[in-house]
């Protein structure tokens, strides 16, 4: 397969895999299709010691295709997940209804706290995730509605919430934001949203037009690297033969 045929969803999966580069022996907790394929791709290439689950209560021994089951190596019911969260040995990839330039995230509701205009999930595990261990985000449709100046409800904690006098905040770490347009982090001035690479075919203007705030390093951002032949094969044949990734990410 030639590299020219690499789809946007495949670049996204690759970028999601790289979220886990160097993660070691921790629990990878991706919350969407593309980030799940990414975590499993990392496990099959450079990060074999990652722990992955079936999304319910079983730790998977092998690395099966998304949506399929495989042999099990352990048990992780919900209450034990909270023990793992508190231990810090985890990297979660959450979604976001809103994300601001300091990394505050909302998946709870829109509007006032006690009478929202639209109800979503509530804060879920976002406050505990972000204050305890590495938390990255995956946004399948990068837009101004998601990348806002101010989130309505702070669920995932952003860098500007840190109290420098209080060591309880010392584990806050948001390594990556992967979107359908590119790869970002919070390495801009004062821990602000920064472009690391744009996917092939994406322009800086497109990112700027779809983000409410200024994106640091946008002009200098490179291009997301191409997957290797092995990575492409693993994505297409082993991990996602039914091409579920295309349903989540369009070019």
């Amino acid at each position, binding site marked *: 397969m030639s590299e020219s045929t690499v789809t946007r969803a495949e670049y996204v999966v690759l970028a999601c895999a790289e979220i886990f580069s160097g993660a070691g022996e921790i629990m990878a907790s991706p919350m969407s299709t593309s980030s799940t394929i990414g975590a499993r791709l990392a496990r099959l290439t450079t990060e074999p010691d990652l722990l992955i689950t079936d999304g319910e209560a079983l730790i998977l021994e092998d690395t099966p295709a998304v949506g399929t089951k495989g042999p099990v190596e352990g048990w992780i019911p919900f209450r034990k997940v909270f023990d793992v969260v508190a231990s810090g040995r985890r990297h979660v990839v959450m979604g976001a209804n809103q994300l601001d330039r300091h990394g505050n995230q909302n998946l709870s509701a829109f509007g006032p*706290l006690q009478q929202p205009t639209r109800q979503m*999930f*509530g804060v879920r595990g976002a*406050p505990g995730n972000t*204050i305890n261990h590495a938390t990255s985000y995956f946004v399948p449709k990068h837009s101004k509605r998601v990348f806002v100046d101010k989130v309505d409800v*702070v669920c995932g904690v952003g860098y500007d919430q840190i109290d420098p006098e209080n060591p309880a905040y010392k584990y*806050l770490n948001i390594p990556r934001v992967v979107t359908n347009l590119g790869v970002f982090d919070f390495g801009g001035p004062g821990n602000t949203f920064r472009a690391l690479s744009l996917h092939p075919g994406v322009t800086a203007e497109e990112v700027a037009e779809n983000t409410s705030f200024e994106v640091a390093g946008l002009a200098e951002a490179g291009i997301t690297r191409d997957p290797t032949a092995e990575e492409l094969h693993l994505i297409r044949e082993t991990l996602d033969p039914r091409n579920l990734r295309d349903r989540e990410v369009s070019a």
Partner: protein
Amino acid sequence: MASKRDKTKSLDEVVGELRSGMTIGLGGWGSRRKPMAFVRAILRSDVKDLTVVTYGGPDLGLLCSAGKVKKAYYGFVSLDSAPFYDPWFAKARTAGEIEVREMDEGMVKCGLEAAAARLPFLPIRAGLGSDVRSFWGDELKTVTSPYPEADGRSETLIAMPALNLDASFVHLNLGDKHGNAAYNGVDPYFDDLYCMAAEKRYVSVERIVETEELVKSVPLQNLLLNRMMVDAVVEAPNGAHFTLAGESYGRDEKFQRHYAESAKTPESWQAFVDTFLSGSEEDYQAAVKKFADSSKAGEQAK
């Protein structure tokens, strides 16, 4: 010879012990092994102004549909499958009908553990820096460690207050008439903690069996509840419907979709109430079976 207490009761007898204004805990998780038969019994009663503590799903939705909830403590509310957001909880929220103390999922476990151990609070990191502080206001405070770090700074953490409950409702797969009970399947959820945090503890089970059969049927580790944790046992086959229940049954996705669709208009909800929620638990189960049969027939006709 004196014998142990027989704690078997009916759904309506148990709910008869509830009072308006109580704080109740509902076990399970999202749309998983929820005590739905108990919830339906609460809908049949005139109990109201409840404060509910839960990992929310359609249990909270149904209580909201009947205006029974005054205040809710929860880590999330989810149907776990499309449309994911519970429509009745969403309505109660956007109408401002309930006061919420939304919190991180881990804070629910922490608050139940504090209550179970009769502690006023437990420290936890989760919640710091987030709008959980805003949801709770003065009801959620911090606590500073008396042990500083090596650099002399002390950690200030969330002081999660005990989630003390007047009553807890949980549904398990198998139990005896004394309150020993077991889950099967992959997850106990937090049902033991709900029982340990509550004054009155009510468990419904798929089937009541003799103690000997119970302990032979499951590994020791699945015996989640002992007699000290239970005040009444109700036999309620299919009592978690339409949520899933371990190895007993999966979620009734079709019916859950019907529930969520029916919430959309007053007319469709009235039809849902008339068909499913205006009689006894037996009437509900019969109507559910009819619903499954007719949707199967409908598919075959296509």
